């Protein structure tokens, strides 16, 4: 693994990109390294590009050197909106800088020159588009500033050709023969001898629908109504593409170059316009000052996200309705109305410990299901588990691991006539609170934490090997079946307690 990017602090510690992670760690043991998520970065820059659509109608992400990292704005005829080129450059870079990015920017007549300057002389504004002016500005820059391949750069450097100024006047044919057509082309592009076209990013969102208004709108109802229309159009698109979406974003472009986004999520991929519109309506009920149309909204766009394949479904004759779809819709609606964390549902957990074998999860979240988490049919579990195991008094029990002959639970005595063999369940020793607890779960006191720290975990486990419970299924004279367990073992020093954990039907 190698470093691909380092921040200023890392540079000061002598780290460089391309260094191997192992070496870097030897140098800076407490280095914080994150793996590059190229997809995330690409997506992030796509978002930036969209965001910059407030500044210029034509925004592109340049993918020459990496699929992210270089934003190109065609500012022909827009800079006056920002009070001139200088002010515009400053405003654009500052906003990114405020977000915590390291930004360099430049303005020039050609894409190539602007790129070179942004990377090697950030802040430069080159008003003139004259080839000579451009060349003078670029001559001293390293050849890498021409957006060349690493290989081309290395080849040029090896021949001692390190600055752009050194290569312009060489024999073009000889250079092309040695470094390929790309070199001369890049040079010509930077100097404006040949044109380079931008591929604007918008419309990059594959599936969206939008409406522009001649007169800006400002009322929430108008927005929602437009949203419903757009939902119908968008869903038709999705249907044609056999896709469904799990997220829907409503972009509100204000006349003052601000974008507000509302997002709703669905538990499963959908393209039901009524459902989508309903989700936005519910979402609108929760608005608290987020909706601010300012001077009005002149464009609304509805985009689908989190796309996945959704084949056409047959409705009617052979439809199988098991209710899951309705349940999901209910979850979506409740969650969009009450908030995502307010609606929960039960899921199985893969564990031996009975009271931990289920957990609550947000209802609109799809979770990867552990196929082995389903309960094991060979290990019968009571239909009703008591919220808290209840201490019972037992009559004689065979030592060391026999069942009791009877018990007193909630002051009523029971006499058992049938019992099973013990089922022994050991505590999950790796958990911090690994001692199987039968009391209410409480935060350990600082003293207890200190005490726990002073123990060697392995030693402790060895001293009294994993605490465990022995469970018995017992049946009394009246045919009631109980799930009973003994916590721990009979030893000379301790008399274990017995608990009732559940009742069978």
């Amino acid at each position, binding site marked *: 693994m190698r470093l691909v990017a380092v921040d200023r602090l890392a540079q000061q510690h*002598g780290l460089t990109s391309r260094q191997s992670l192992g070496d870097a760690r*030897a140098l800076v043991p407490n280095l*914080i390294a994150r793996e590059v998520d190229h997809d995330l970065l690409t997506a992030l820059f796509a978002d930036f590009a969209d965001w910059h659509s407030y500044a210029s109608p034509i925004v592109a992400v340049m993918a020459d050197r990496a699929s992210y990292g270089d934003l190109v704005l065609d500012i022909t005829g827009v800079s006056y909106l920002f009070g001139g080129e200088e002010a515009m450059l400053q405003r654009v870079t500052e906003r990114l800088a405020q977000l915590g990015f390291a930004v360099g920017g430049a303005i020039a007549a050609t894409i190539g020159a602007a790129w070179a300057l942004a990377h090697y002389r950030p802040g430069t504004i080159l008003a003139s588009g004259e080839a000579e002016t451009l060349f003078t500005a670029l001559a001293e820059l390293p050849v890498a500033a021409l957006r060349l391949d690493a290989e081309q750069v290395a080849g040029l450097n*090896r021949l001692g050709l390190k600055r752009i100024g050194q290569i312009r006047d060489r024999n073009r044919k000889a250079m*092309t023969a040695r470094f390929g057509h790309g070199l001369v082309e890049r040079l010509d592009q930077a100097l404006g001898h040949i044109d380079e076209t931008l591929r604007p990013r918008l419309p990059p969102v594959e599936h969206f629908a939008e409406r522009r208004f001649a007169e800006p709108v400002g009322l929430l109802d108008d927005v929602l109504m437009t949203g419903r229309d757009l939902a119908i159009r968008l869903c038709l698109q999705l249907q044609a593409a056999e896709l469904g979406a799990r997220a829907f974003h409503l972009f509100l472009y204000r006349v003052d170059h601000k974008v507000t986004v509302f997002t709703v999520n669905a538990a499963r991929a959908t393209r039901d316009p009524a459902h989508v519109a309903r989700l936005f309506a519910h979402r609108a009920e929760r608005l608290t000052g987020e909706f601010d149309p300012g001077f009005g909204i002149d464009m609304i766009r509805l985009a689908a996200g989190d796309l996945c394949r959704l084949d056409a479904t047959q409705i009617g004759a052979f439809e199988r309705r098991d209710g899951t779809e309705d349940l999901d819709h209910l979850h979506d609606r409740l969650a969009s109305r009450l908030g995502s964390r307010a609606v929960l549902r039960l899921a199985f957990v*893969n564990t031996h410990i009975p009271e931990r074998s289920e957990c609550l999860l947000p209802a609109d979240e799809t979770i990867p299901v552990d196929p082995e988490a389903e309960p094991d049919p060979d290990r019968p579990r009571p239909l009703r588990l008591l919220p808290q195991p209840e201490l019972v008094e037992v009559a004689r029990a065979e030592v060391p691991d026999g069942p009791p002959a009877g018990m007193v639970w909630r002051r009523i005595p029971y006499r058992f006539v049938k019992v099973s063999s013990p089922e022994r369940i050991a505590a999950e020793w790796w958990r911090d609170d690994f001692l199987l607890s039968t009391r209410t779960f409480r935060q350990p006191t600082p003293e207890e934490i200190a005490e726990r720290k002073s123990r060697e975990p392995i030693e402790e486990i060895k001293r009294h090997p994993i605490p465990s419970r022995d469970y018995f299924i017992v049946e009394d004279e009246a045919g009631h079946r109980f799930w009973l367990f003994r916590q721990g073992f009979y030893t000379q020093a301790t008399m274990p307690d017995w608990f009732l954990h559940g009742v069978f039907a």
Partner: protein
Amino acid sequence: MSADNVIKLKREITPREAAPPLAFAELLATSNFSFLRAGSHPDELVMTALMQGMTGIGICDRNSLAGIVRGYTALRDLREDSEFSEQAKAFRYVVGARLVFADGTPDIVTYPTDRAAYGRLCKLLTTGNRRARKGECILNFADLAAFAEGQLFILQVDETRLQASEEALAALRNLARGRVWLAANCTYDGNDRMRLNRLADMARRHRVPLIATNDVLYHEPGRCVLQDVVTCIREHLTIATAGRRLEQNAERHLKFPMEMARLFRDHPDALAQTQAVLNRINFTLDELKYNYPKETVGNGETAQQTLERLTWAGMRKRYADRKRFPDGIPPMVVDGVRSELKLIAEMRYAPYFLTVHDLVHFARYKRKILCQGRGSAANSMVCYCLEITEVEPSVGNLVFGRFLSTERNEPPDIDVDFEHERREEVMQYLYRKYTRERTGLTATVVRYRTRGAMREVAKVFGLSSDAIAAMNGLNWGSQDGKPRSQRVSRLGFDPDEPILSKVLDIAGELMGFPRHLSQHVGGFVITRDKLDHLIPVANAAMDDRTVVEWDKDDLDALGILKVDVLALGMLSCIRRAFQYMHVHYGQDLTLDGILDEERQDKTLSARVYAMAQRADTIGVFQIESRAQMSMLPRLKPAEFYDLVIEVAIVRPGPIQGGMVHPYLKRRQGLEDAEEVNPRLRAVLERTKGIPLFQEQAMQIAIVAAGFPPGKADQLRRAMATFRRSGTIHKLRSEFLAGMKANGYADDFAARCFSQIEGFADYGFPESHAASFALLVYVSCWLKCHYPDVFACALLNSQPMGFYAPAQILRDAEEHGVEIRAVDINRSDLENILEPGRRAAAHVLPRHAEMAGDIRSKMAIRLGLSTIKGLKEDHINIIVARRGDGYRSIRDLWLRTGLAPAVLEKLAEADAFAESLGLDRRDALWAIKGLIGTDGAETLSLFAAAGLPAPGRDEKTDLPEMAPGEAVIEDYKALSLSLKGHPVQFLRQNLVRRGIIAAAELVKTPAGAIVEVAGLVLVRQRPGTASGIIFMTLEDETGIVNIVVWNRVFDNNRLTVLGSRLIAVRGEVQREGQVVHVIARAFTDFTPDLMALARGEEPIAIGENTRPARRRRMELDAEARAALPSGRNFH
């Protein structure tokens, strides 16, 4: 319920409690040799079963017998141990395997009843192994038919597939009537009673007995922690998500017979059946002993007779020289040989010696391969007479007896080193002679060590890969042992944090667990019987190689013959040197001949020793490291035995035991040897009362601590095989008590013990050191008289040793040898010798006293293989088609047909300068233009037409390279430069800063504070030097040795580890001729070097603007790409 109801306590039974006569043996015990499926070592299982009062134990691993010898040796040691010997002698240890089938048959455990049945089991497993990829074994139920005779079977029902299990039981019973049992165990899953009844019913229906077991995975309940962790490792799970894939409870440990009786109270016969099985097994591993091959015996003689004949004949040859031995063979030698032969006869080891003798003779006389034996048994007159070793044992005190002690029935151990490039020939010979059926490679058990254990356990606990890497980074320099908690906390981790502390603890316990079997580099097993009837054999990673399941300790324990056929780079180097001597100087040298000169001409040999005393030993075998070089001027070796000591003393064993300084003091006469009793004095006399060799340490245990030899060896093994068992502490206190009882001082005793500890892994036996010392002398001799030949041979035998080619060349140059650059028309694949100048006339003043000894008159021409990234095939084409030389680059291209990318590599190495007059950039320009400038000129057309190639290449107007840059480019392409040293281009700036050169350092008084700068050649952190780092820097005038204390290192970690070119400020320290600088502060000069080499102004260190930083980074990255990073040694 009242307390008096508590009758029996399940977990608190003490072994001392009078056990009722309950006979139970656990027959389904899985050890951790069923890799990642069980939580205990075989010896732990055996020991615990014994303590619990079982009558025996059977270890059965999954389709493998890899762990059985461990259990066997554990029991053997217990039998020798007085405390438990009674119990242990009655205890039965039976070996078997759990057969796991590929066709869905439930697991069947099998125990062979006699030797023949054991052979069949091995054969079965071999068949399964050979079918599968390395590390797997594929068995089908059908395979059992041919092998069932003499086996006892225990079938384990697969609960999920009852029907299939029942069918398998029926089939098995038909196959082996009366020899089948049905296993039953209590799992505490809530259905035990029901299941036992069901199994009993099934057993009744098929008329097979039920047998009680606990299907054991670990020896004591606490190990279930480790069991859960290894399960997660195996299944790639994290402990938090593993859930029900882990065992529900911790019940699969060895249980006391009484507890088993209670669990099976409704089925008492099941318990008794364990005894029935034990009683029917007659096989023990003892029956495998002494399975020596017979081939070496010809003409009707017994092996012993052949050995004696060869030995006497060899002796007459060895002592034939009338000048040295005017009175014939010394009587002492005859006596020695006689008593050795007697011992060999007694122990029946003759075939072993004959096998090694045969091997050595084949290599030496049939193939002319240099080889030499070493190892414990090599220290014998017999080996010397048989020409297995070259060092006459009389130089030392023979301790042959210890290794062939009649008490320890372990075979002698001889390793033979061969030239590393030709070892394969010897291996092929072995295969041919003993056939593949009887020859195999020994295994090595790859075990979890600190890093691996940490990584796996941390993964199981879900720690991020960053955290894992960081934690493993802690152990820079230490291989074993728990990471120290202070280091952990320095990383920003809290070592007391529960998860982390569990990870550290469990990793500590996992350490030493076998992970998988691998093959030993050169260990051969040779047997009389077919190998696959003795040990299961498996496919090795390499085609055509097979590897057995046991490692060398296992084979030792059973007395099975093994020969280590090892590779030694220095032998290849010496062989080459001898060849060059023959070709260029017309001299025919042999190892023996050079050694003879040492013995006979003291004035000549004094010159060689003089060189060693000056520590002028770069490239010399063994004594070239920093530590060795600083020892030489102090030890001042003046005779052969001094070299033996020199080799042995700078080893972790003696260093750890604190033996070095006392020895030096005594040698310099500053201190007298302490008074010890005569027996111990005899042991330690040659080493001035200080134990330096492995066998001395063992002899102290015997002589001074009163250990019987067997126990002394047990001590050695206890320390060699991972320090986990408690036995080591017991042995330690016995050792100390023993020495005290014999009247030795406590601190002397403690010192001896700590040295034995060090020896366990890193000590040299004397014979070993002596064999190495021979190569030390020979390589010294070559370097002393023919530095050209020596350097050339050494370079062509790379990689080996401590130094990079650049340093070896530089050293040769300092001794007057001319080095010539790589050239397209003059270089071969390897470095070659060309007629040159008389080296003695060009020796640097520093080595002036050598001038009289240097006889070199050749120059070294660097070979094309020096060029990084150039393939050997391509070089061969270049050399083969060269004819009378290439006239231009185009000519080269057309004649060789090599791709321009390949030619570029030549250009980058500046290989066109000398004969074509093209510098790097000119050549590159020409190569880049080969395709495309004159498009019509295609390769095949011209090659076919045989047209004369175009003439010279044009010069270009490309910017010329600064001299410094050219040097750096040389480093990039060749890792060295003949044009200069990178540091010289910085010198002006360095001088301005007050930095002095290495050459000036020699004149600096001790205690002065100086600053030096150079390329970092080596960083070394020896495990023994309590964290000190040694750095070696090189500038254009020489080498500087830096010592970095731990604290200073921690504060300057970045600079020390990251710099290619570094300046160090510190205090001068002198020890004889060796000068160190004790570092205090560091400056990284790496980027400046690059700037200056280009003739640019370096960026001021204080300057911290953005472009400056950026530029600095660029330069730094470039310099890093070019310059060697320095070798890091641990």
